[in-house]
């Protein structure tokens, strides 16, 4: 039954993916989109829009959505807390801060754009390390989450400060880190984003360990799992996936928090289902949100992070009220 759910998610994702190629300031009929994809002739302008603009953007939305959602799922399992989410506990914030700092300072240094993902990764890693370290001293998972919330606030105000300090040209792009947008998508970005695929694969391979760790650190140890090693591995992978995602699209709010919950509610808590389910649903939701962000104020567009937060926030409140004890908070 859960496998059937995964299949439905996959099919829905395919349908929405094709639809997303037809939506936009220039409406292109689905049939023409399909013909273009199959290599048939269509008007060269439409072909260019589909292949050079919308297709990379579609792939980027799916990859980043999958990355953010699976990172959320993995880190929720690792921290044994359904509230853990890279965007809530400062990982994304750290990544955004370092990426923005690199942009403001690094632009003067004239370093290649590959440096942005790397800076974002380092920022995310540092933020995660801080969260873990403060949490370790506080002694409880709650103190870790609270530390994350504090670090998140600090990093985002850092981004705000950079916005204030930056020149007009940099300003828009710095604001972009905090709000999240798929607006710069190109095939180069897609190529970088594919680096999250091995991360998701490793999350999937570690499903059993993630299941065990939800029982507790001691209990996982009794089941033969080296918790310290698993923790480092998951944290580094999460920082990597988050760093790449933030570098390409800024901070995408709520996908990492809400998607794993939705998947657990419908497919159960087993990470063998939660990880692929989150990947598919995260990709699907970010793609939907991006399609909305492109079409709501067309031809202008909203940063997609605004849409995900606008829809994700109230929905999460609904979840809390509706599910009561069942969220495990």
């Amino acid at each position: 039954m859960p496998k059937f759910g995964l299949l439905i998610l996959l099919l829905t994702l395919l349908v929405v993916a094709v639809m997303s190629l037809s939506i936009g300031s220039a409406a292109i009929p689905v049939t023409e989109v399909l013909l273009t994809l199959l290599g048939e002739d269509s008007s060269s302008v439409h072909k260019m829009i589909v292949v050079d603009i919308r297709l990379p953007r579609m792939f980027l939305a799916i990859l980043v959505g999958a990355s953010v959602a699976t990172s959320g799922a993995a880190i929720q399992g690792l921290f044994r807390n359904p509230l853990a989410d890279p965007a809530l506990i400062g990982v994304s914030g750290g990544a955004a801060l370092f990426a923005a700092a690199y942009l403001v300072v690094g632009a003067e240094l004239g370093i290649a754009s590959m440096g942005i993902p790397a800076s974002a990764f380092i920022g995310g890693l540092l933020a995660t390390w801080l969260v873990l370290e403060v949490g370790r001293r506080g002694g409880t998972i709650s103190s870790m989450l609270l530390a994350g919330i504090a670090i998140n606030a600090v990093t985002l105000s850092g981004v705000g400060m950079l916005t204030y300090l930056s020149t007009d040209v940099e300003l828009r792009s710095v604001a972009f880190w905090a709000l999240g947008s798929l607006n710069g998508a190109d095939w180069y970005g897609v190529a970088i984003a594919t680096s999250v695929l091995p991360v998701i694969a490793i999350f999937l391979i570690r499903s059993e360990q993630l299941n065990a760790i939800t029982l507790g650190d001691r209990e996982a140890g009794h089941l033969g799992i080296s918790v310290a090693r698993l923790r480092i591995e998951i944290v580094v992978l999460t920082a990597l996936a988050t760093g790449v995602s933030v570098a390409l699209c800024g901070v995408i709010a709520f996908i990492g928090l809400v998607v794993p919950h939705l998947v657990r509610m419908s497919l159960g808590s087993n990470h063998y289902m939660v990880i692929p389910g989150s990947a598919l649903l995260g990709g699907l939701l970010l793609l939907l949100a991006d399609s909305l962000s492109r079409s709501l104020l067309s031809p202008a567009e909203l940063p997609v992070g605004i849409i995900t937060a606008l829809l994700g926030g109230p929905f999460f409140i609904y979840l809390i009220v509706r599910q009561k004890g069942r969220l495990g908070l």
Partner: protein
Amino acid sequence: MSIVISNLSYVIEESQLLKDISVTVQGGSIVAVVGPNGSGKTSLLKAVNGESAASAGRVLVDDDDVHSMSLQQRAIRFGILPQQADLDFPFHVVEVVQMGRIPHQTSMQTNQEVVDEVMGEMRLQNIRDRVYLTLSGGEKQRVQIARVLSQIWDARDGACLFLDEPTAALDLSHQLALFRTLESIAEMGTTVMVVLHDVNLALRFAHQVLLLSKGRLLTSGAPLDVLTPETMRDAFEVDTELFPTNDPARPFILTSSR
């Protein structure tokens, strides 16, 4: 598996939780660890199963030093039930029980058979597909016990089971059922070390009782030799009396009204 504990001490942050404990446990026996709060029962369990390092002394399980065994080696031979579980994710009951099979390389079919058998043993079939978080305290406890049992079920002839207050949340009938199960797997060769507050359960089911007080092993041996009014006064500072039952070998203990 026999367990030989020699001169075991455990010190953490200058408080000595275990002091120079030496005792031998026969393979295939049920050993009750009894003593007042803070007497070191849980510490003893952790030090014996290798979870915490010994500050001095050592523990041999069938001639293997527990503290030099790897996590994996211990996971295959030891089932450990901590005092309280904090599983906060909405897993189904059967999935929680299946987690006991994680250390094993056995086939899916074997795992499924083990899980089915254990769930039958703990009478969980009717709540098999319930969400763990919606269960009562006693039901959760039975699920956790089943998980631990499934970990050692196919190695019952040479495993150790460490249970920290497994009966705390269980009603009378499930307490009895649990000890029937423990008796049957002990008969097959599993050594069961169980922390108990209910001395009458110890009296009735244990082959050996370890009575702890302030980190020391006050005395150990057959239940009736250990749980005497004298030692009970020494350990718990309460007066107790033994009352006979229909079975003269199985009296029960009550605190005196004085």
